[in-house]
């Protein structure tokens, strides 16, 4: 049978392979391959030079980041053939045999004044060469950020896109019960570590939104028994009420230049979209419709808004140019499309897709209108793109409790953020930190 197959398929195969004498180079076609993450080994950083080992495990932070991206698969430590900390110690054939295509090694050296030198190298096992090599002088409190920074560099080296591990997220956490119930606005690292409380309130807090420079948050507070919009500077904790009009003051969103806020106000009747100049507080009405228009977000070019409206009878997404004109409907698939966020490339939306009582996170390709559902939960909410557009942060419900998840667009990997206290909702992914000065 095999013989027959070979003989009958031979001409075809030869034709396919292009194995004609006239051609100098033979061609072999590869049509099969296993879809999978890039196997990487992250060796624990050598700390033997330190008088006291660090409590922060840099390698495990990097491992967690890389795994979360969906693009990488960090091999279990038990499979590592050696524990090198410098490239000259690396025996490449051993690593190749282990299946790792790339290798992360490093060490931490003591510096004067209680700070550290973190050295790391990113090595190509197959090419046997260094792809990245850095030394970071860091203080102890920046060790985690440094590990995320290393993850970002690795991600960028492989994909060409800046990684978003060393960024922050904001979210609302509800803690306590009954009279002790508190609403807390928090900021944390993307892996959920280092949570910091920005604001605590007995009344509901909602809709945190990052300023483009990452220095401030806008949010909705019910501290005055009705929704009002505030802006709070994180470092100084200074806050100011931006919108306290009659009726609803909701859903703030920053313009890309950080000078304007899009808001939902009902002061003139049904909720409509307005744009406020932050410096002058001057309002400009963008939509005027009997239906509810809400959840505005600026497009990356700052020239349009995308928002949710039930003007067609059910919530759908629309785009309206700030220069005027009629809103253009963007979603047609499904009875419920809401809570848009725009990717930094401006070509994709993350949204909440509802159908048959199920609300899931989906991605809409604005170029071909292709909608892809990214999650398999029952009740998701508030999708928010990472600044590089490769992951989506969202909240979902686990045992009557809100928790934060990330889904990787690279590998559809779902990752639950480390447990936050309380019932967590409405996450917002912050912008890149200012570029390193190195």
């Amino acid at each position, binding site marked *: 049978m095999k013989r027959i197959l*070979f*003989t009958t398929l*031979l001409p075809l*195969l*030869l034709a396919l*392979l*292009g*194995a004609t004498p006239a051609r*100098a*180079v*033979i*061609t*072999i*076609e*590869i*049509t*099969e*391959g*296993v*879809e*999978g*993450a*890039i*196997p990487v080994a992250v060796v624990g950083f050598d700390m033997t030079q330190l008088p006291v080992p660090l409590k922060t495990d840099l390698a495990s932070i990097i491992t967690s980041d890389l795994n979360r991206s*969906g*693009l990488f698969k960090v091999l279990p430590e038990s499979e590592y053939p050696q524990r090198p900390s410098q490239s000259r110690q690396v025996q490449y054939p051993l690593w*190749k045999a282990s299946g790792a*295509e790339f290798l992360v090694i490093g060490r931490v050296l003591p510096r004067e004044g209680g700070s550290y030198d973190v050295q790391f190298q990113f090595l190509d096992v*197959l*090419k046997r060469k260094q792809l990245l090599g850095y030394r970071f002088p860091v203080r102890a409190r920046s060790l985690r950020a440094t590990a995320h920074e290393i993850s970002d560099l690795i991600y960028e080296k*492989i*994909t*060409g896109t800046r990684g978003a591990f060393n960024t922050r997220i904001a979210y609302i956490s509800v803690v306590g019960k009954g009279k002790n119930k508190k609403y807390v606005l928090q900021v944390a690292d993307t892996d959920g570590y280092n949570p910091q409380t920005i604001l605590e309130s007995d009344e509901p807090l909602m809709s945190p939104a990052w300023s483009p420079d990452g220095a401030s948050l806008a949010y909705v507070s019910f501290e005055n028994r009705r929704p009002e919009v505030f802006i709070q500077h994180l470092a100084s904790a200074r806050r100011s009420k931006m919108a306290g009009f009659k009726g609803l003051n909701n859903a703030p969103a920053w313009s890309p230049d950080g000078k304007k806020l899009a808001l939902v106000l009902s002061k003139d009747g049904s909720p409509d979209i307005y744009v406020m100049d932050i410096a002058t507080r001057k309002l400009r009405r963008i939509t005027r419709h009997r239906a509810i228009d809400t959840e505005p977000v600026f497009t990356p070019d700052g020239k349009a808004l995308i928002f949710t409206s039930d003007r067609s009878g059910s919530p759908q997404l629309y785009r309206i140019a700030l220069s005027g004109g009629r809103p253009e409907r963007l979603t047609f698939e499904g009875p419920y499309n809401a809570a848009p966020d725009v990717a930094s490339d401006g070509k994709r939306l993350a949204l909440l897709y509802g159908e048959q009582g199920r609300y899931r996170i989906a991605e809409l390709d604005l170029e071909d209108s292709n909608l892809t559902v990214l999650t398999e939960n029952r009740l998701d909410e508030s999708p928010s793109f990472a600044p590089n557009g*490769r992951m989506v942060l969202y909240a979902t419900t686990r045992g009557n409790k809100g928790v934060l998840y990330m889904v990787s*667009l*690279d*590998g*559809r990997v779902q990752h639950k953020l480390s447990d936050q206290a309380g019932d967590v909702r409405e996450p917002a992914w912050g912008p890149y930190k200012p570029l390193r000065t190195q």
Partner: protein
Amino acid sequence: MIAFLRQHPKALGYSLLLHVLILGLAAFSFDSRDAQQLVRKPGPQTQTIQTEIIDEKALEKSARKQAEVEQRKAEAEKKRKAEAARKKAEAEKKRKAEEARKKAEAEKKRKAEAARKKAEAEKKRKAEEARKKAEAEKKRKAEAARKKAEAEKKRKAEEARKKAEAEKKRKAEEAARRKAEEEQRRKEAELQARLAAEERQRELDLMRNAYYAKIRDKISRNWRQPPNAGDKPECEVRVEQDPGGFVLNVTIGRCPGTREYRLSVEQAVRKSDPLPKPDDPELFERDILIKFKPRD
């Protein structure tokens, strides 16, 4: 000769007469020919008579007119004429006798000559006839002999020709048979060689196929397509290897798609280092173009 005479008795008679005449005439010193003419039977003679018609009246008239002159003259003339006529008659008579004689003699001679000529002609004819007959006979015989000889010769020639032809044919057949056999052997040898070559080619093709399949399988096994590849576009990677299969160079050619996708095809090749070797070193390919062409 006797038989001939018997057949022609007249000839005998003539012959005998001839002999007697010859003997008889020898005494008159005639030559044989004259004698023969003389003894010939004389035929009827015809005499020619000279006549002259004179008109008497005219004469008388003239004579009267001329008178004596004429009378005398006439008398003299008459006398002279009588004399002349007598002499003339006499001469005439003599001449005529002589003439008759000569004529008879000539006739006789002519007849004898004619008879001789006839006999001679007859004889000659007969001799000629006999000669001719003999000649014809001889000729016939010669012809017959010639013909016979010719026929014999022809027969022999034919025989020889046939034999030669048969031999030639046999030889030609033999040669053709040998040639055919040789051709058959040659063809068989050729077929064998061709089959062997085909077999070798087939074997090589199978091995080449297997070689490429091994490379394809190894690279496929090592091709980890990134999960975010999306459209998975077609990529070309040029590989240079040494005979041990060790990859010397990897060059990414036309390859759209994300950076990690491009990386994945390069890694697939590098991970497959060393590449499988062919069963026959002849099949080794230093440069290989790998086309990554994922199926959806």
